[in-house]
């Protein structure tokens, strides 16, 4: 059977690897559509032929649960992620504690992050900085991008000295360095939930299960994700 997965764009590397494996084993074919979670959720609401939805944040999954577009009992939290502060390759570590003088570190320059009201990484970042008590000072220096990768690009291109991204994004980009990890309690837990959609094919459940096999876990971990429910 052909299983269609709607997955948050940041999962591409890991999921592509897992899917290749799974296809070889099961004989099912997988088509994975990577996009921002918000758009995928809207598409599912509009009747997209998705069997599985893996969101980068819980709110859109909650929304779909509300409208009955997913099978509530199939929902589980699949992955977690850390929120990190990245800087250029030669940046010094920053201790992300309450009252950290991020604004001072930035000087005249910008802090790159996702849209603070809509892109999940941006929203987490805002929350974290708020709980560290520095949001108001930092906000005027925030450059928001439409996705978290673009924020990373700003740092790697040297346009912004620092950026807030997921730990998984910082992997494998030599020109950026993680200079600090936001304390887990400074923001809502970063959770990637998975669920079958209302119209999911029966075979889809097997792939959801396959996402929790050791091979899959290894693949996720290799991309810097935390695997939940272990």
């Amino acid at each position, binding site marked *: 059977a052909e299983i269609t997965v709607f997955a948050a764009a940041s999962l*591409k590397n890991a999921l592509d690897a897992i899917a290749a494996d799974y296809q070889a084993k099961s004989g099912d074919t997988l088509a994975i559509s990577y996009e921002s979670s918000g758009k995928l959720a809207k598409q599912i609401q509009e009747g997209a032929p998705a069997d599985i939805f893996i969101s980068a944040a819980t709110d859109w999954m909650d929304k779909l649960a509300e409208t009955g577009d997913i099978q509530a009992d199939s929902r589980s939290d699949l992955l977690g992620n850390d929120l990190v502060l990245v800087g250029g390759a030669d940046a010094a570590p920053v201790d992300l504690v309450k009252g950290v003088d991020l604004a001072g570190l930035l000087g005249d320059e910008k802090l790159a992050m996702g849209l603070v009201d809509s892109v999940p990484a941006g929203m987490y970042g805002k929350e974290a900085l708020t709980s560290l008590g520095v949001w108001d000072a930092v906000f005027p220096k925030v450059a928001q991008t439409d996705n978290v990768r673009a924020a990373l690009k700003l740092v790697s291109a040297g346009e912004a000295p620092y950026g807030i991204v997921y730990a998984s994004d910082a992997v*494998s980009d030599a020109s950026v360095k993680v200079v600090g990890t936001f304390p887990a309690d400074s923001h809502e837990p970063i959770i990637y939930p998975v669920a079958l959609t209302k119209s999911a094919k029966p075979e889809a459940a097997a792939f959801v299960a396959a996402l929790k096999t050791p091979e899959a876990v290894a693949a996720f971990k290799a991309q810097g994700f935390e695997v939940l429910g272990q």
Partner: protein
Amino acid sequence: MFDWLTPEARAAVLLSLKVSVWATVVSLPFAIAIAHGIARRAGWVWQAVNGIVHLPLILPPVVTGYLLLLTFGRKGWIGQWLDQWFGIVFAFKWTGAVIAAAVMSFPLMVRAIRLAIEAVDPKLEAAAGTLGANRLWVFGTVTLPLIVPGIIAGAILAFAKAMGEFGATITFVSNIPNQTQTLPSAIYAFLQVPGGDVAAARLVAISVVVALTALVASELVARRVARLIAGN
């Protein structure tokens, strides 16, 4: 060819080509008809049409994509009806990508053709009239041949735009490999993950080569047509 591409990327290239060609071809007659109306008729109706045609240009592509989803989606007011009565579904199909690309490139096409129509000397059309040709025939035998360079210009602009269209397409039909994943969507997906830059650059190169080839070819055709009309 394309051996150095992953099968998925290859599929994206082919799909993009298919979608762009279809989008161009399908919208061409409408574009010509509407351009003609706007260029040669007066009145607020055509002014309104003119405005509507430009909307996809003005709106962020995402918005156009959502509007398409709300209109042609399976639950959309037209989509639902098409599905029920004709079994035609656009949402999340390559045909949907065609629609998205066609809608997005439509203003460009219409503008180009319209400029060409406005450059046609109405005196020639009048001359055709004195020879007994009715409006439709005049259009087909005088106006249309004379605007061929403009049509080619509009078509190639539309084709290029369709090749690059991303926002509305991915919003309307998502990004499903082999089905709705066009080249720009694939590029987008690669750009979203660590280490995807190289793969993305490769796709960008393909996209550039394909579109520029089409561009150069169209230029040659347009030049030949123009030279033919100039009579040298």
